[in-house]
C-alpha cells in the first residue's frame, strides 16, 4: 500500500495564498469558534499539518478543556510540603523520600483502546505511563493496575478481560517491571466501557530530576526509539482521506497502537545512561499525541523556539505526509534536547543498545515552532498556543434527577439473612462473588518479583518496594476506586476511595505522602456527568487538604459512555507512602498461633452501596458510609508507630465485603485458623457485612495486647478484641454461631475467575 506521492504538500505559503480553502475542522472535532481562533493566532488559515496539531492539542484528551476549571482546585487546596519536587503539569509528580532519593508515580487511563483491542490497548497503556516516569529522570521500578469490566458472565467480558490481562502482563513482564498490586471489579455499568487504569512508579536520585524544557538556542532535538508509522493516527486521518486516492485500504490503519516492550526496555536503559552521563538538557515522552505534543510542549516550556526537519524522522511506512508524521502515535519514542557538543555521544550510546536515535531539529531563538518537510515550511506557530492556550470550557453542571430517589432507597432496609445458617451461607456466597473472590488467575500472569525489591505484592493491601538495600527505606502504594459509592454520592465516594487507598498504605506500616488520581467519567457534555465530576474532584481536593498530602498528578478520562449510559463515576485514587525500613512492614495474615485478633474502628449499620447489597440483592441505593478523615489520620499514625515498634503481626483493611471478607482473606492467606467471638450485643450480620469506613483488622503478638490497647486509647481509636489465631482451628470458628472449614472457604474463594470465564 503506497500513497499518491504527487499530492502537493500544504505549506504555509500555500495557506497564505489560499485563504478560502475549505478545511475539515469540524470533522477533526474543532468548534467553529476554535477554528476562528486558530486563524486569528496565525493571521491566516492553518496548513493541514497545523490544523492536525491544533485539533489534537485542543482535544479533550490533551487540553483538559472540560476539566481544567475544576482541576484547579488541586493547586488551590494542595497542602504545601517540602517533599513535592514536581507536581501537576509535569509528566508525573515527584516527591522526595529523603535528602538523596525521590520517587515519581502516576496513574493513567487507557480505557477506550482497551475496549477496541484489549491486549494492545492495555499493553500500550502500561507503556505510556512507564515513559512518563522515564521522562522525569527516574528508573521505573513497579507497575499496578486498576481494572473494571462488565458483568463477569457477559460474553464480551470473556473477550475483554483475558486480552487486557494478557496485554498488561506481556508488556510489564517483557519490560521487566514487577506488578505489585491493583484491583479488578465487575459491574454491568462498565459493559461497553471497561476501565484500564495503569500506575507506574519510579525512583531517582534527586539530582537527576529532568525537565521537559527545550532551552538553549542551538541545542539539538533528537528523536529516540521506534520508527514512526501510520498507527494510532485516529481522527487526523480525515485530513488524509480528502487527498488520497479512493482506495479503501488507505484507511485500514490500526486505530490502536501496537506496543513493543523490548524497545521500551532499551529506551529505559538508554535514557538512564544518558541522564547519568549528564548528556540531556530536556526530555519528553511521545504519548497520546505523538510528535505534535512532544514538540509543542518542550518548545512551549522552553524560552525560545524550535526548528524541525520532518523528513529526518525515521519512518516505517511509505508515503507518510507531514500531518501523518506529526500525529502518529507510534509507541516507544522519546524526544531529547541535547547540547550539540554531546549529540555524537548520545547517538553512539543509543546505537550501542541497538536503539535508533536521530537528530531532527534544533532549538532556536525565534519563539516559533517551525516544521519543514523537504525544505518546505508546513508548520509555523507559537508553541504556547498549542500547549498552554487551548480552549477552556465552563460546562453546565446539574445534579442527576434520580439522585434523590436513589438516596432514599437504602440498602439498610433490604431483607437480611435471619439464621446462623443463612449468615454462614452468605459468607461463602460473598467470598465466591466476582468482586471479592481470589484474583490470582489474573495476578499470576504478572511478574511480581523482578528487581528483587518487592517486599509485599498482591494480595497484600498495598505493594511495598524497597528503594535502598543499605537503609531499607521503601515505599508502599495502593490503588483504589469504588464506582458504586461514587454513584450514590460522588463527593463522599471519591473521599471513601481516597481514604481506602490511604488506609491500605497505612496498614503496611508506611506513612502516606502523596496522591495520584485517575478520573473516569461519562461524557462531559452531559451536565449530570459534569456535576459528578465536579463533586468528585472537590471531594479529592478537600480530602487531600485535610489529610495534608498533595495530589501530584493524574489523568482525566471522559466519554466512558455508550449512548446515554455513562459508567458509574469512578475516581481511582493512588496513594504513595514511605516506610523507613521495609523489614518492619506489616503483612496480611494471622501472625502466629495464640496471637490476638482485634478490630480498630467502629462498625455502624452501613450497607448502602455495599458488596452485600450488590451480590445478594443486585441493589444500588441509599447513601454511602460516612468518611472521617481525622480518624483515618490517627489510624495511619498509630499503624506507622506500631510497625516501627514491631507490635503488630499482621493487619488488613476492611473494605468491600466487610469483616467477613477480611477474615476469609486473612485465613486463606495465612494457613492458620481463627476463633472469633463477636462483642456482646453485636448483631452478627451487621458486624460481618457492614462496610463502615476507617476499620482495620489487626493481629497482635502475645504480650503486646495491653500496649496496643493503650496506644489506641491514647488516640481515641476504639479497639475491640475479637478472638485468637489458632493453628488447631480449621478455618473460621465464629463462636455461638457457625464454623466454616478451610477447605470449604478455599473452595468458595479460589478458582472463580477462570471458572467463570469458561476455563
Amino acid at each position, binding site marked *: 500500500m503506497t500513497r499518491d506521492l504527487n499530492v502537493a504538500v500544504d505549506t504555509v505559503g500555500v495557506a497564505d495564498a489560499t485563504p478560502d480553502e475549505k478545511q475539515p475542522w469540524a470533522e477533526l472535532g474543532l468548534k467553529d469558534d476554535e477554528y476562528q481562533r486558530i486563524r486569528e493566532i496565525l493571521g491566516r488559515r492553518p496548513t493541514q499539518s497545523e490544523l492536525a496539531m491544533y485539533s489534537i492539542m485542543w482535544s479533550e484528551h490533551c487540553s483538559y478543556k472540560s476539566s481544567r476549571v475544576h482541576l484547579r482546585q488541586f493547586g488551590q487546596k494542595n497542602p504545601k510540603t517540602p517533599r513535592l519536587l514536581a507536581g501537576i503539569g509535569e509528566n508525573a509528580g515527584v516527591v522526595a523520600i529523603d535528602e538523596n532519593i525521590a520517587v515519581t508515580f502516576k496513574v493513567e487511563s487507557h480505557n477506550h483502546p482497551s475496549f477496541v483491542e484489549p491486549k494492545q490497548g492495555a499493553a500500550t497503556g502500561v507503556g505510556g505511563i512507564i515513559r512518563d516516569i522515564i521522562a522525569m529522570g527516574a528508573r521505573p521500578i513497579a507497575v499496578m493496575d486498576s481494572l473494571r469490566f462488565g458483568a463477569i458472565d457477559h460474553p464480551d467480558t470473556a473477550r475483554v478481560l483475558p486480552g487486557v490481562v494478557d496485554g498488561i502482563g506481556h508488556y510489564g513482564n517483557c519490560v521487566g517491571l514487577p506488578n505489585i498490586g491493583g484491583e479488578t471489579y465487575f459491574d454491568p455499568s462498565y459493559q461497553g466501557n471497561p476501565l484500564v487504569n495503569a500506575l507506574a512508579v519510579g525512583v531517582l536520585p534527586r539530582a537527576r530530576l529532568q525537565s521537559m524544557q527545550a532551552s538553549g538556542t542551538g541545542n539539538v532535538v533528537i528523536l529516540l526509539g521506534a520508527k514512526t508509522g501510520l498507527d494510532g493516527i485516529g481522527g487526523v486521518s480525515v485530513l488524509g482521506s480528502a487527498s488520497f486516492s479512493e482506495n479503501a485500504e488507505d484507511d485500514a490503519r490500526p486505530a490502536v497502537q501496537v506496543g513493543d516492550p523490548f524497545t521500551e526496555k532499551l529506551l529505559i536503559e538508554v535514557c538512564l545512561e544518558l541522564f547519568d552521563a549528564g548528556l540531556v538538557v530536556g526530555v519528553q515522552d511521545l504519548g497520546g499525541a505523538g510528535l505534535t505534543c512532544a514538540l509543542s510542549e518542550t518548545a512551549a516550556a522552553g524560552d525560545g523556539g524550535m526548528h524541525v526537519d520532518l523528513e529526518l524522522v525515521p519512518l516505517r511506512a511509505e508515503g507518510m505526509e507531514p500531518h501523518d508524521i506529526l500525529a502518529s502515535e507510534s509507541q516507544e519514542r522519546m524526544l531529547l534536547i541535547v547540547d550539540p557538543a554531546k549529540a555524537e555521544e548520545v547517538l553512539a550510546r543509543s546505537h550501542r543498545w541497538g536503539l535508533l536515535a536521530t537528530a531532527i531539529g534544533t532549538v532556536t531563538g525565534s519563539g516559533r515552532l517551525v516544521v519543514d518537510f523537504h525544505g518546505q515550511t508546513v508548520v509555523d506557530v507559537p508553541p504556547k498556543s498549542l500547549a498552554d492556550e487551548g480552549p477552556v470550557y465552563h460546562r453546565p453542571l446539574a445534579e442527576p434527577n434520580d439522585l434523590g430517589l436513589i438516596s432514599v432507597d437504602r440498602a439498610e432496609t433490604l431483607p437480611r439473612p435471619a439464621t446462623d445458617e443463612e449468615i454462614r451461607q452468605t459468607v461463602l456466597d460473598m467470598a465466591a462473588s466476582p468482586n471479592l473472590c481470589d484474583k490470582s488467575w489474573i495476578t499470576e500472569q*504478572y511478574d511480581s*518479583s523482578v528487581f528483587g525489591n518487592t517486599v509485599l505484592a498482591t494480595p497484600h493491601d498495598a505493594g511495598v518496594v524497597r528503594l535502598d538495600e543499605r537503609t531499607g527505606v521503601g515505599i508502599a502504594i495502593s490503588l483504589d476506586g469504588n464506582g458504586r459509592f461514587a454513584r450514590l454520592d460522588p463527593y463522599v465516594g471519591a473521599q471513601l476511595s481516597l481514604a481506602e487507598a490511604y488506609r491500605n498504605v497505612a496498614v503496611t506500616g508506611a506513612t502516606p505522602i502523596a496522591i495520584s488520581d485517575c478520573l473516569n467519567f461519562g461524557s462531559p457534555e452531559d451536565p449530570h456527568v459534569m456535576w459528578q465530576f465536579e463533586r468528585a474532584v472537590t471531594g479529592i481536593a478537600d480530602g487531600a487538604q485535610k489529610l495534608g498530602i498533595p495530589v501530584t498528578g493524574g489523568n482525566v478520562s471522559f466519554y466512558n459512555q455508550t449512548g446515554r449510559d455513562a459508567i458509574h463515576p469512578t475516581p481511582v485514587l493512588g496513594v504513595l507512602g514511605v516506610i523507613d525500613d521495609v523489614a518492619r512492614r506489616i503483612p496480611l495474615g494471622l501472625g502466629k498461633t495464640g496471637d490476638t485478633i482485634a478490630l480498630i474502628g467502629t462498625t455502624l449499620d452501613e450497607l448502602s452501596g455495599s458488596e452485600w447489597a450488590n451480590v445478594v440483592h443486585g441493589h444500588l441505593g441509599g447513601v454511602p458510609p460516612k468518611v472521617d478523615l481525622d480518624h483515618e489520620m490517627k489510624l495511619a499514625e498509630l499503624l506507622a508507630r506500631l510497625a516501627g515498634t514491631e507490635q503488630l503481626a499482621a493487619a488488613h483493611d476492611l473494605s468491600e465485603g466487610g469483616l467477613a471478607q477480611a477474615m476469609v482473606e486473612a485465613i486463606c492467606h495465612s494457613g492458620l485458623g481463627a476463633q472469633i467471638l463477636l462483642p456482646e450485643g453485636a448483631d452478627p450480620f451487621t458486624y460481618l457485612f457492614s462496610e463502615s469506613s476507617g476499620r482495620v483488622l489487626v493481629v497482635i503478638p502475645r504480650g503486646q495486647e495491653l500496649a496496643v490497647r493503650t496506644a489506641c486509647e491514647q488516640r481515641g481509636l476504639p479497639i475491640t478484641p475479637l478472638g485468637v489465631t489458632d493453628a488447631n482451628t480449621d478455618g473460621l470458628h465464629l463462636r455461638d454461631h457457625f464454623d466454616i472449614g478451610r477447605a470449604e472457604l478455599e473452595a468458595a474463594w479460589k478458582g472463580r475467575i477462570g471458572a467463570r470465564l469458561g476455563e
Partner: protein
Amino acid sequence: MSARIGIVTFPGSLDDRDAARAVHLAGAEPVGLWHDDTALAGVDAVFLPGGFSYGDALRCGAIARFSQVMDSIKRAAGAGMPVVGVCNGFQVLCESHLLPGALVRNAHLRYRNRPARLRVETDRTAWTRLYEPGTEVVFPAKHGEGRYVADEATLDELERTGRVVFRYLDNPNGSMRDIAGVTNEAGNVVGLMPHPEHAVEALTGPSTDGLGVVASVLTHLSEGVSR
C-alpha cells in the same frame, strides 16, 4: 580474593540485577558482561539471567545464541567453566546446544508466576554440589515458555545419567517428566526455569534456598572438580 562471576546483559535481559545481588550475597564478585563483546573479563563462572533477550524475536533465546559473548561462553564451557542459565538463560543454553531439549509454550498457554516447589535431584553439578540430593527447595517460577521438552531417547538418557538436576513437585507448565532443570554431561553447565536468584532473601523471596546455587559454584571453584 573472591570468585568473579560474570553476568551477561543481553538487550532485554531483566533479572541481571537480581543475579548480581545473589552473587554478591553469596560472597562472590558479580562482573557485568556485554552481549556484543567477546571478552569474558577473566571471570571464573557465568550466570545467564532471565528476561526477554532480543525481545524473544523468532524464539526465546534464538538470537542470543548468535551473540558475540555466547561464542566465548561456548568455548569456555567446553573447557569446563561453570555456566548457569536461569529462565531465558536456560532457553539460551538450549538454543546454543550447550544443553539438550527445548523450552516451549506452557501447556496452559499462559505466563504464570508462582513459587515452585522443586526437588534437587543431584549434587553432581557445579551449581548444586552443596545440596543434599532429594532436598526440597522453593524458587519463584515465572514464565510463559518454560515447558521442557525433548525426545524420549534424550529424556531416558538424561534420567539414566543423572542429569535431571531439578524436578517440579507441582508441575506448573506441563514440562515432560516434571523436569525443571538439567545439566550437561560434564556437570558444569546447568539450566533451570525457576529463579534461584529470587530466593536469596527472606524479605523478598519465598525462601533463601537459592543461595545454595551460587554457594555451590564457589565451593566447586575453590575445591576444583571432585566428583
